[in-house]
Protein backbone atom coordinates (compact mmCIF):
# COMPACT_ATOMS: atom_id res chain seq x y z
CA UNK A 1 0.00 0.00 0.00
CA UNK A 2 2.79 2.39 1.00
CA UNK A 3 4.64 1.52 -2.21
CA UNK A 4 1.55 2.31 -4.23
CA UNK A 5 1.18 5.67 -2.47
CA UNK A 6 4.86 6.46 -2.95
CA UNK A 7 4.54 5.53 -6.58
CA UNK A 8 1.60 7.87 -7.00
CA UNK A 9 3.38 10.79 -5.29
CA UNK A 10 6.52 10.17 -7.37
CA UNK A 11 4.51 10.45 -10.55
CA UNK A 12 2.83 13.68 -9.40
CA UNK A 13 4.32 17.03 -10.29
CA UNK A 14 5.47 19.37 -7.49
CA UNK A 15 2.25 21.31 -7.85
CA UNK A 16 0.19 18.14 -7.74
CA UNK A 17 1.88 17.16 -4.49
CA UNK A 18 1.08 20.55 -3.00
CA UNK A 19 -2.57 20.25 -4.01
CA UNK A 20 -2.81 16.67 -2.71
CA UNK A 21 -1.20 17.51 0.65
CA UNK A 22 -3.38 20.64 0.97
CA UNK A 23 -6.54 18.61 0.43
CA UNK A 24 -5.32 16.06 2.99
CA UNK A 25 -4.57 18.79 5.53
CA UNK A 26 -7.94 20.48 5.00
CA UNK A 27 -9.58 17.10 5.65
CA UNK A 28 -7.43 16.76 8.78
CA UNK A 29 -8.54 20.24 9.89
CA UNK A 30 -12.19 19.30 9.41
CA UNK A 31 -11.64 16.13 11.40
CA UNK A 32 -9.86 18.10 14.16
CA UNK A 33 -12.70 20.62 14.25
CA UNK A 34 -15.33 17.92 14.59
CA UNK A 35 -13.32 15.90 17.09
CA UNK A 36 -12.25 18.80 19.32
CA UNK A 37 -15.79 20.24 19.41
CA UNK A 38 -17.01 16.88 20.75
CA UNK A 39 -13.99 16.41 23.02
CA UNK A 40 -13.07 19.88 24.37
CA UNK A 41 -10.39 18.31 26.56
CA UNK A 42 -8.20 17.74 23.50
CA UNK A 43 -8.15 21.42 22.54
CA UNK A 44 -7.77 22.44 26.18
CA UNK A 45 -4.80 20.13 26.78
CA UNK A 46 -3.06 21.25 23.59
CA UNK A 47 -3.80 24.87 24.32
CA UNK A 48 -2.45 24.69 27.85
CA UNK A 49 0.75 23.05 26.65
CA UNK A 50 1.17 25.98 24.25
CA UNK A 51 0.20 28.48 26.94
CA UNK A 52 2.73 27.03 29.37
CA UNK A 53 5.43 27.50 26.74
CA UNK A 54 4.32 31.04 26.01
CA UNK A 55 3.58 32.12 29.63
CA UNK A 56 7.16 33.25 30.45
CA UNK A 57 7.17 35.40 27.30
CA UNK A 58 3.77 36.87 28.19
CA UNK A 59 4.95 37.63 31.74
CA UNK A 60 8.12 39.24 30.40
CA UNK A 61 6.13 41.29 27.91
CA UNK A 62 3.78 42.38 30.70
CA UNK A 63 6.74 43.52 32.85
CA UNK A 64 8.23 45.34 29.86
CA UNK A 65 4.89 47.02 29.16
CA UNK A 66 4.73 48.25 32.78
CA UNK A 67 8.28 49.63 32.63
CA UNK A 68 7.75 51.33 29.26
CA UNK A 69 4.43 52.78 30.42
CA UNK A 70 6.07 54.14 33.59
CA UNK A 71 8.95 55.64 31.63
CA UNK A 72 6.63 57.19 29.05
CA UNK A 73 4.53 58.78 31.79
CA UNK A 74 7.75 60.10 33.32
CA UNK A 75 8.82 61.65 30.00
CA UNK A 76 5.41 63.17 29.35
CA UNK A 77 5.46 64.69 32.83
CA UNK A 78 8.92 66.07 32.18
CA UNK A 79 7.93 68.06 29.08
CA UNK A 80 6.77 70.91 31.32
CA UNK A 81 10.13 71.31 33.05
CA UNK A 82 12.32 71.63 29.99
CA UNK A 83 14.07 74.69 31.39
CA UNK A 84 15.65 72.76 34.23
CA UNK A 85 19.34 71.98 33.97
CA UNK A 86 20.58 68.52 32.97
CA UNK A 87 21.48 67.32 36.43
CA UNK A 88 18.23 68.38 38.03
CA UNK A 89 16.32 67.03 35.07
CA UNK A 90 17.95 63.65 35.54
CA UNK A 91 17.09 63.67 39.22
CA UNK A 92 13.53 64.73 38.54
CA UNK A 93 13.21 62.01 35.90
CA UNK A 94 14.49 59.43 38.34
CA UNK A 95 12.19 60.64 41.11
CA UNK A 96 9.20 60.78 38.82
CA UNK A 97 9.96 57.29 37.66
CA UNK A 98 9.98 56.16 41.26
CA UNK A 99 6.76 58.03 41.97
CA UNK A 100 5.13 56.40 38.93
CA UNK A 101 6.31 52.99 40.07
CA UNK A 102 4.97 53.67 43.55
CA UNK A 103 1.73 54.98 42.08
CA UNK A 104 1.36 51.83 39.99
CA UNK A 105 2.10 49.71 43.06
CA UNK A 106 -0.42 51.73 45.09
CA UNK A 107 -3.10 51.30 42.44
CA UNK A 108 -2.36 47.58 42.19
CA UNK A 109 -2.47 47.38 45.97
CA UNK A 110 -5.86 49.10 46.02
CA UNK A 111 -7.23 46.71 43.37
CA UNK A 112 -5.94 43.67 45.26
CA UNK A 113 -7.36 45.04 48.54
CA UNK A 114 -10.74 45.46 46.84
CA UNK A 115 -10.48 41.89 45.54
CA UNK A 116 -9.57 40.58 49.00
CA UNK A 117 -12.32 42.56 50.66
CA UNK A 118 -14.81 41.23 48.10
CA UNK A 119 -13.64 37.66 48.73
CA UNK A 120 -14.01 38.11 52.50
CA UNK A 121 -17.44 39.74 52.28
CA UNK A 122 -18.85 37.25 49.80
CA UNK A 123 -17.30 34.25 51.55
CA UNK A 124 -15.73 33.13 48.29
CA UNK A 125 -12.47 31.25 48.55
CA UNK A 126 -10.30 31.99 45.60
CA UNK A 127 -6.90 32.52 44.08
CA UNK A 128 -5.86 36.02 43.03
CA UNK A 129 -4.33 36.02 39.55
CA UNK A 130 -2.92 38.60 37.16
CA UNK A 131 -4.06 38.84 33.56
CA UNK A 132 -1.03 38.29 31.31
CA UNK A 133 -2.52 37.87 27.87
CA UNK A 134 -5.53 38.00 25.57
CA UNK A 135 -6.82 35.93 22.66
CA UNK A 136 -4.70 36.83 19.61
CA UNK A 137 -7.28 36.31 16.88
CA UNK A 138 -9.98 38.67 18.16
CA UNK A 139 -12.66 36.10 17.32
CA UNK A 140 -12.70 34.47 20.75
CA UNK A 141 -13.15 36.54 23.92
CA UNK A 142 -10.54 35.09 26.22
CA UNK A 143 -7.80 35.93 28.69
CA UNK A 144 -4.63 34.23 29.91
CA UNK A 145 -3.93 34.39 33.66
CA UNK A 146 -0.72 33.64 35.54
CA UNK A 147 -2.08 31.02 37.95
CA UNK A 148 -2.69 27.36 37.16
CA UNK A 149 -3.43 23.99 38.69
CA UNK A 150 -0.40 24.25 41.02
CA UNK A 151 -2.11 27.28 42.62
CA UNK A 152 -5.49 25.57 42.90
CA UNK A 153 -7.05 26.77 39.64
CA UNK A 154 -9.36 24.09 38.23
CA UNK A 155 -11.12 23.60 34.93
CA UNK A 156 -14.53 25.26 35.02
CA UNK A 157 -13.70 27.58 37.93
CA UNK A 158 -15.56 30.89 37.89
CA UNK A 159 -13.39 33.99 37.47
CA UNK A 160 -14.59 37.19 39.11
CA UNK A 161 -13.49 40.65 40.24
CA UNK A 162 -14.88 42.86 42.99
CA UNK A 163 -17.18 44.45 40.38
CA UNK A 164 -18.62 41.25 38.98
CA UNK A 165 -18.19 38.14 36.89
CA UNK A 166 -15.43 37.91 34.26
CA UNK A 167 -15.77 34.36 32.93
CA UNK A 168 -14.74 30.78 33.57
CA UNK A 169 -11.56 28.73 33.22
CA UNK A 170 -11.68 26.62 30.05
CA UNK A 171 -8.13 25.29 30.16
CA UNK A 172 -5.70 25.04 33.06
CA UNK A 173 -2.02 24.20 33.00
CA UNK A 174 0.39 24.00 35.95
CA UNK A 175 1.32 27.70 35.87
CA UNK A 176 -1.31 29.44 33.78
CA UNK A 177 -4.93 29.15 32.69
CA UNK A 178 -7.20 30.33 29.90
CA UNK A 179 -10.44 32.13 30.75
CA UNK A 180 -13.45 32.30 28.45
CA UNK A 181 -15.15 35.66 29.03
CA UNK A 182 -18.89 35.91 29.66
CA UNK A 183 -19.10 38.13 26.57
CA UNK A 184 -17.88 35.37 24.23
CA UNK A 185 -20.47 34.14 21.75
CA UNK A 186 -20.28 30.60 23.13
CA UNK A 187 -20.66 31.69 26.74
CA UNK A 188 -23.86 31.50 28.77
CA UNK A 189 -24.60 32.11 32.46
CA UNK A 190 -27.81 31.25 34.30
CA UNK A 191 -28.98 34.63 35.58
CA UNK A 192 -31.70 36.35 37.56
CA UNK A 193 -32.84 39.99 37.45
CA UNK A 194 -32.51 41.44 40.95
CA UNK A 195 -35.86 43.27 41.42
CA UNK A 196 -38.25 41.36 39.18
CA UNK A 197 -36.62 37.96 39.91
CA UNK A 198 -37.07 37.02 36.25
CA UNK A 199 -34.73 34.17 35.28
CA UNK A 200 -32.89 33.80 32.00
CA UNK A 201 -29.59 32.96 30.40
CA UNK A 202 -27.04 35.75 29.96
CA UNK A 203 -25.46 34.98 26.59
CA UNK A 204 -22.35 36.65 25.24
CA UNK A 205 -22.65 38.96 22.25
CA UNK A 206 -18.96 39.61 21.66
CA UNK A 207 -18.04 43.26 22.07
CA UNK A 208 -21.68 44.29 22.44
CA UNK A 209 -22.00 42.86 25.94
CA UNK A 210 -24.67 40.36 26.96
CA UNK A 211 -28.22 39.41 26.01
CA UNK A 212 -30.58 38.02 28.61
CA UNK A 213 -32.49 35.26 26.81
CA UNK A 214 -35.71 33.44 27.67
CA UNK A 215 -37.28 36.34 29.60
CA UNK A 216 -41.03 36.07 29.04
CA UNK A 217 -43.01 39.13 27.99
CA UNK A 218 -44.94 39.03 31.27
CA UNK A 219 -41.81 39.80 33.28
CA UNK A 220 -41.68 43.45 34.34
CA UNK A 221 -38.06 44.47 33.93
CA UNK A 222 -36.74 48.02 34.15
CA UNK A 223 -33.62 49.51 32.65
CA UNK A 224 -30.79 49.81 35.15
CA UNK A 225 -31.80 46.75 37.18
CA UNK A 226 -28.92 44.55 38.23
CA UNK A 227 -28.55 41.11 36.67
CA UNK A 228 -27.03 38.53 39.01
CA UNK A 229 -25.86 34.95 38.74
CA UNK A 230 -28.54 32.50 39.87
CA UNK A 231 -26.03 29.85 40.95
CA UNK A 232 -28.07 27.18 39.19
CA UNK A 233 -25.58 26.47 36.41
CA UNK A 234 -23.09 24.89 38.81
CA UNK A 235 -20.29 27.18 37.66
CA UNK A 236 -20.87 30.63 39.15
CA UNK A 237 -21.71 31.19 42.83
CA UNK A 238 -25.14 32.74 43.44
CA UNK A 239 -25.56 36.52 43.68
CA UNK A 240 -22.53 37.75 41.72
CA UNK A 241 -23.14 40.80 39.56
CA UNK A 242 -23.15 40.16 35.81
CA UNK A 243 -24.21 43.66 34.78
CA UNK A 244 -27.18 45.95 34.50
CA UNK A 245 -30.11 46.01 32.08
CA UNK A 246 -29.26 48.54 29.37
CA UNK A 247 -32.10 48.07 26.86
CA UNK A 248 -35.39 46.22 26.60
CA UNK A 249 -37.40 45.57 23.44
CA UNK A 250 -40.61 43.60 22.97
CA UNK A 251 -39.03 41.12 20.53
CA UNK A 252 -41.78 40.99 17.88
CA UNK A 253 -44.22 38.09 17.80
CA UNK A 254 -42.04 35.75 19.88
CA UNK A 255 -42.63 34.60 23.43
CA UNK A 256 -39.67 36.41 24.89
CA UNK A 257 -38.41 39.96 25.39
CA UNK A 258 -35.02 41.09 24.10
CA UNK A 259 -33.02 42.28 27.08
CA UNK A 260 -29.54 43.75 26.64
CA UNK A 261 -27.16 43.75 29.60
CA UNK A 262 -24.14 45.98 30.05
CA UNK A 263 -21.41 43.91 31.79
CA UNK A 264 -20.41 45.21 35.23
CA UNK A 265 -16.73 44.53 34.56
CA UNK A 266 -14.85 46.48 31.91
CA UNK A 267 -13.19 43.38 30.56
CA UNK A 268 -10.73 45.30 28.36
CA UNK A 269 -9.25 46.89 31.48
CA UNK A 270 -9.28 44.03 33.95
CA UNK A 271 -5.79 43.39 35.38
CA UNK A 272 -6.33 41.20 38.44
CA UNK A 273 -8.99 38.55 38.96
CA UNK A 274 -10.12 36.09 41.60
CA UNK A 275 -10.45 32.46 40.52
CA UNK A 276 -13.14 30.81 42.64
CA UNK A 277 -12.06 27.53 44.21
CA UNK A 278 -14.09 24.40 44.68
CA UNK A 279 -16.32 24.34 41.64
CA UNK A 280 -14.30 22.22 39.26
CA UNK A 281 -16.20 20.71 36.34
CA UNK A 282 -15.59 17.96 33.86
CA UNK A 283 -13.93 19.23 30.65
CA UNK A 284 -17.00 18.51 28.53
CA UNK A 285 -19.10 20.75 30.76
CA UNK A 286 -17.02 23.88 30.27
CA UNK A 287 -17.00 26.55 27.65
CA UNK A 288 -20.60 26.21 26.55
CA UNK A 289 -23.97 27.59 27.27
CA UNK A 290 -25.93 25.97 30.11
Amino acid at each position, binding site marked *: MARVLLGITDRLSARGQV*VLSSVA*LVCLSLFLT*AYSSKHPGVAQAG*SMAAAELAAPFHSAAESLRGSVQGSLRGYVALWGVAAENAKLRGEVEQLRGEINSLGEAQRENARLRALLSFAQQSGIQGVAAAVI*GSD*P*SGWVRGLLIDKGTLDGVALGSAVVTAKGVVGQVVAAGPGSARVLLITD*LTSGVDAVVQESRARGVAEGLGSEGLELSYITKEARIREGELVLTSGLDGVYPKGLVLGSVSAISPGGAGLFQLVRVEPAVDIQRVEEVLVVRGRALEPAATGGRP
Partner: protein
Amino acid sequence: MIFVRMVLLGSAATFLQGSLAHLGLPASLMPQLALLIAVFGAFSESSVPAVFGAFSVGLILDLSSAMILGPWSGAFVVVYLMLSLVSQRLFIDSGLVAAIVSFFAALLAGSLFAALSPSGDLLRGQHLVMLCGQAVVTALVAPWLFAALSCVIGRPDPASLRGPSPLSAR
Protein backbone atom coordinates in the same frame (compact mmCIF):
# COMPACT_ATOMS: atom_id res chain seq x y z
CA MET B 1 13.99 24.70 6.17
CA ILE B 2 10.78 26.47 5.25
CA PHE B 3 8.59 24.49 7.66
CA VAL B 4 10.67 25.39 10.73
CA ARG B 5 10.96 29.03 9.70
CA MET B 6 7.24 29.37 9.10
CA VAL B 7 6.47 27.78 12.48
CA LEU B 8 8.92 30.06 14.30
CA LEU B 9 7.66 33.17 12.52
CA GLY B 10 4.04 32.06 13.05
CA SER B 11 4.65 31.59 16.77
CA ALA B 12 6.18 35.06 17.00
CA ALA B 13 3.30 36.55 15.01
CA THR B 14 0.69 34.87 17.23
CA PHE B 15 2.50 36.09 20.34
CA LEU B 16 2.61 39.61 18.92
CA GLN B 17 -1.11 39.50 18.10
CA GLY B 18 -1.83 38.37 21.67
CA SER B 19 0.29 41.19 23.06
CA LEU B 20 -1.48 43.76 20.87
CA ALA B 21 -4.85 42.45 22.05
CA HIS B 22 -3.67 42.62 25.65
CA LEU B 23 -2.56 46.22 25.14
CA GLY B 24 -6.16 47.05 24.25
CA LEU B 25 -6.10 47.06 20.44
CA PRO B 26 -9.72 46.53 19.34
CA ALA B 27 -10.41 43.18 17.66
CA SER B 28 -11.56 44.93 14.47
CA LEU B 29 -8.13 46.59 14.15
CA MET B 30 -6.12 43.44 14.79
CA PRO B 31 -3.75 42.67 11.90
CA GLN B 32 -3.70 38.97 11.03
CA LEU B 33 0.08 38.67 11.25
CA ALA B 34 0.06 34.87 11.47
CA LEU B 35 -1.95 34.73 8.25
CA LEU B 36 0.60 37.00 6.58
CA ILE B 37 3.31 34.44 7.39
CA ALA B 38 1.29 31.84 5.47
CA VAL B 39 0.76 34.33 2.61
CA PHE B 40 4.47 35.14 2.46
CA GLY B 41 5.19 31.42 2.55
CA ALA B 42 2.91 30.90 -0.45
CA PHE B 43 4.81 33.54 -2.41
CA SER B 44 8.15 32.13 -1.32
CA GLU B 45 7.76 28.48 -2.07
CA SER B 46 5.18 26.08 -3.40
CA SER B 47 6.10 22.83 -1.68
CA VAL B 48 4.71 20.18 0.64
CA PRO B 49 6.74 21.36 3.69
CA ALA B 50 5.39 24.88 3.13
CA VAL B 51 1.80 23.53 3.14
CA PHE B 52 2.56 21.85 6.47
CA GLY B 53 4.06 25.14 7.61
CA ALA B 54 0.83 27.00 6.81
CA PHE B 55 -1.18 24.28 8.57
CA SER B 56 1.05 24.50 11.65
CA VAL B 57 0.83 28.30 11.84
CA GLY B 58 -2.96 27.99 11.77
CA LEU B 59 -2.84 25.29 14.43
CA ILE B 60 -0.76 27.57 16.68
CA LEU B 61 -3.47 30.21 16.36
CA ASP B 62 -6.12 27.56 17.11
CA LEU B 63 -4.18 26.45 20.19
CA SER B 64 -3.97 30.02 21.46
CA SER B 65 -7.74 30.12 21.90
CA ALA B 66 -8.31 26.82 23.73
CA MET B 67 -11.77 26.50 22.21
CA ILE B 68 -11.44 24.26 19.20
CA LEU B 69 -8.71 22.93 16.92
CA GLY B 70 -8.91 23.04 13.16
CA PRO B 71 -10.68 26.17 11.88
CA TRP B 72 -7.63 28.41 11.51
CA SER B 73 -5.36 25.60 10.31
CA GLY B 74 -7.87 24.63 7.62
CA ALA B 75 -8.37 28.25 6.60
CA PHE B 76 -4.61 28.88 6.36
CA VAL B 77 -4.08 25.79 4.19
CA VAL B 78 -6.82 26.91 1.78
CA VAL B 79 -5.33 30.41 1.60
CA TYR B 80 -1.85 28.97 1.08
CA LEU B 81 -3.05 26.64 -1.67
CA MET B 82 -4.95 29.34 -3.56
CA LEU B 83 -2.06 31.79 -3.39
CA SER B 84 0.62 29.26 -4.24
CA LEU B 85 -1.34 28.32 -7.37
CA VAL B 86 -1.30 31.93 -8.61
CA SER B 87 1.93 33.15 -6.99
CA GLN B 88 3.95 32.84 -10.20
CA ARG B 89 1.62 35.29 -11.88
CA LEU B 90 1.78 37.98 -9.17
CA PHE B 91 4.51 40.51 -8.56
CA ILE B 92 4.76 40.38 -4.78
CA ASP B 93 7.45 43.09 -4.64
CA SER B 94 4.69 45.56 -5.43
CA GLY B 95 3.27 46.90 -2.16
CA LEU B 96 -0.12 47.38 -3.77
CA VAL B 97 -0.31 43.75 -4.91
CA ALA B 98 0.80 42.57 -1.48
CA ALA B 99 -1.89 44.70 0.15
CA ILE B 100 -4.67 43.56 -2.19
CA VAL B 101 -3.72 39.89 -1.93
CA SER B 102 -3.49 40.14 1.87
CA PHE B 103 -6.86 41.88 2.06
CA PHE B 104 -8.62 39.09 0.20
CA ALA B 105 -6.60 36.43 2.06
CA ALA B 106 -7.76 37.88 5.40
CA LEU B 107 -11.37 38.00 4.18
CA LEU B 108 -11.16 34.40 2.97
CA ALA B 109 -9.45 33.09 6.11
CA GLY B 110 -11.88 34.91 8.41
CA SER B 111 -14.88 33.64 6.43
CA LEU B 112 -13.58 30.07 6.50
CA PHE B 113 -12.93 30.34 10.24
CA ALA B 114 -16.46 31.65 10.78
CA ALA B 115 -17.89 28.86 8.62
CA LEU B 116 -15.92 26.14 10.42
CA SER B 117 -16.49 27.55 13.91
CA PRO B 118 -19.16 25.72 15.92
CA SER B 119 -20.86 29.02 16.77
CA GLY B 120 -22.06 29.03 13.17
CA ASP B 121 -23.51 32.54 13.07
CA LEU B 122 -20.30 34.54 13.22
CA LEU B 123 -20.65 36.31 9.88
CA ARG B 124 -23.21 38.83 11.06
CA GLY B 125 -23.26 42.36 12.47
CA GLN B 126 -20.23 43.23 14.54
CA HIS B 127 -18.30 40.17 13.34
CA LEU B 128 -18.73 41.20 9.73
CA VAL B 129 -17.41 44.66 10.65
CA MET B 130 -14.54 42.99 12.51
CA LEU B 131 -13.73 40.77 9.52
CA CYS B 132 -13.58 43.76 7.16
CA GLY B 133 -11.65 45.87 9.68
CA GLN B 134 -9.07 43.13 10.21
CA ALA B 135 -8.74 42.63 6.44
CA VAL B 136 -8.08 46.34 5.87
CA VAL B 137 -5.50 46.56 8.68
CA THR B 138 -3.85 43.34 7.50
CA ALA B 139 -3.63 44.79 4.00
CA LEU B 140 -2.03 47.96 5.34
CA VAL B 141 0.52 46.02 7.36
CA ALA B 142 1.34 43.44 4.65
CA PRO B 143 3.72 45.51 2.43
CA TRP B 144 5.79 46.56 5.45
CA LEU B 145 5.90 43.06 6.91
CA PHE B 146 6.78 41.49 3.56
CA ALA B 147 9.53 44.05 3.06
CA ALA B 148 10.88 43.25 6.52
CA LEU B 149 10.68 39.51 5.90
CA SER B 150 12.40 39.97 2.53
CA CYS B 151 15.23 41.87 4.24
CA VAL B 152 15.58 39.37 7.06
CA ILE B 153 15.00 36.14 5.18
CA GLY B 154 15.41 36.96 1.55
CA ARG B 155 13.32 38.11 -1.37
CA PRO B 156 10.71 35.71 -2.81
CA ASP B 157 11.99 34.56 -6.16
CA PRO B 158 9.46 33.41 -8.78
CA ALA B 159 12.04 31.00 -10.12
CA SER B 160 12.22 29.32 -6.73
CA LEU B 161 8.55 28.39 -6.69
CA ARG B 162 9.42 24.94 -7.93
CA GLY B 163 12.48 24.54 -5.78
CA PRO B 164 14.36 25.81 -2.73
CA SER B 165 13.17 29.20 -1.55
CA PRO B 166 14.43 32.20 0.40
CA LEU B 167 12.69 30.67 3.39
CA SER B 168 14.43 27.35 2.83
CA ALA B 169 17.76 26.52 4.36
CA ARG B 170 20.52 27.28 1.93
